[in-house]
């Protein structure tokens, strides 16, 4: 059995992969922004913000991403009176909303894992609420956020395959098109080989994503451990001056 496909297959699949990565990028950006907003809002001192973010999270987590995707693609444009919606944008928003719901809970858990003394210290230092989050709490929670966020990003990569069902020409869509056109051609590679190749492409992509996350985790951890040893060094004056 020959696993490799003819080269024009790979050209088509590559074009599909670009669409997949594009959807992934948009969904990721929306998802991360929503995660931070929702995670912080869940722990806000305002009761309205807490309740609204809880409802939002339960809604986006409870509804299936595929149902949300179809609703965003086919129902929302009619309700809003948009004739020609950009399906790429709608699909990315649907996946991003889904990611935001799960990510919000990750961020909330991570913020809660930061020792309370850090918050108290930043209040004592007279930092504003925003400064406290931006410079003290969120950087420290990053260590806890990254591993589950990596898994979530891979889930969203898998979720991008769904946009093929609303006729976006992503990797999965190109695959089904190639299968249909190949049925008329007796020399075409079998469906098994075609789908195996697509599965392998997704697998490689997800391994790359998890590699990137591991790299980020390593860098974040190094920064933390570096900071700690600097404080513990006996002749702190020389080393801290360099690290600034």
């Amino acid at each position, binding site marked *: 059995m020959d696993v490799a496909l003819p080269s024009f297959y790979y050209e088509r699949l590559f074009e599909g992969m670009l669409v997949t990565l594009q959807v992934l990028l948009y969904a990721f950006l929306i998802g991360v922004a929503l995660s931070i907003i929702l995670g912080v809002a869940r722990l806000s001192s305002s009761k309205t913000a807490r309740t609204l973010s809880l409802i939002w999270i339960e809604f986006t987590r*409870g509804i299936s991403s595929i149902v949300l995707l*179809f*609703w965003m693609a086919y*129902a929302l444009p009619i309700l809003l009176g948009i004739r020609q919606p950009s399906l790429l944008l709608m699909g990315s928003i649907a996946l991003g909303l889904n990611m935001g719901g799960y990510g919000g809970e990750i961020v909330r858990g991570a913020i809660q894992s930061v020792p309370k003394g850090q918050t108290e210290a930043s209040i004592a230092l007279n930092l504003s609420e925003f400064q406290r989050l931006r410079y003290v709490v969120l950087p420290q929670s990053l260590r806890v956020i990254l591993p589950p966020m990596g898994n979530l990003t*891979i889930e969203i990569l898998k979720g991008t395959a769904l946009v093929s069902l609303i006729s976006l020409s992503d990797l*999965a869509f190109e695959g089904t098109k190639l*299968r249909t056109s190949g049925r008329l051609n007796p020399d075409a590679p079998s469906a*098994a080989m075609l789908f195996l190749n697509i599965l392998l492409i997704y697998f490689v992509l997800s391994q790359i994503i998890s590699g990137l996350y591991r790299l980020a985790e390593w860098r974040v951890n190094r920064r933390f451990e570096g900071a700690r040893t600097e404080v513990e060094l006996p002749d702190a004056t020389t080393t801290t001056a360099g690290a600034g």
Partner: protein
Amino acid sequence: MTSTTDPELTPSSGHDDDVAGGEAPAHHDLTPPKVRPWWLHPKALIGAGIAIVVLAVLWRFGGGDVRFSTDSRPAPGSTFDWSYFWALVPDMLRGLAVTVQATLAGFALAAVLGLVLAIARRSTIKVISWPVAGFIEFVRSTPLLIQLFFLYYVLPGWGFTMEALVTLILGLGIHYATYASEAYRAGIDSVPKGQWEATTALNLGPITTWSSVIIPQAIPNVLPALGNNLIAAFKDAPLGASIQVTGILAFATAAAGRSFDAGVEPYTLIGIGFLMVSIPSAFAVRRLEKRLAYERTN
């Protein structure tokens, strides 16, 4: 797995079925109380009974070949026609039943296969554990949609022709078995090392070790994670529409396809139908999680 959590053993006015021989309980009675295995506990039996009834009802009314009967259309020119919306409800429920049925059957498969995968992955024989670990990693990081296409279009070529619903069940089962195996692995790791050492000391064979020492202690810790996987599987089950399973999404697509601009009501309806199932289930899983955490600390 301790007797202290068993409400049957707390003293009450009409007691003593559990005390051996029906004798009056002495103050310093050192005979161990009879502890039923967890699967003989009344709660477990009631739960299993309900599950069987629900499954039977689903099987009866949500057969694999559902025909959607409503033929109504929205009033022309309206953005949201309520009468059309209500007319769609019976068909939606029929589609939902198929989706729920596929989820439960697929998850039953996943729960069993996941345990097998988890045990195989822990195997000391590398010829078994490495391919299993690779398989789990591969299936976990590739989309279920493509896996379904693979099963649906490739297996018939290899001589396995299946109904679409069976393909969906198989696909969901294999996909979520890899998730379940991770949950089982965490549960098995949570069993104290002393239990393993005790089985060695008692000279128990591997089958007895797993079936009567490790698994009964691991299962309660795994239940919340499995519950979350079940909800996740339910959210992925509409994917069956892409391989012609007449589930909830196929219903909406069919209804939307009947006339131009008719997508609002059916897609909104299935969204509501979904939330009606998944939010209570998520709530139940969270209750279970809290309860188990409470029992463990007591």
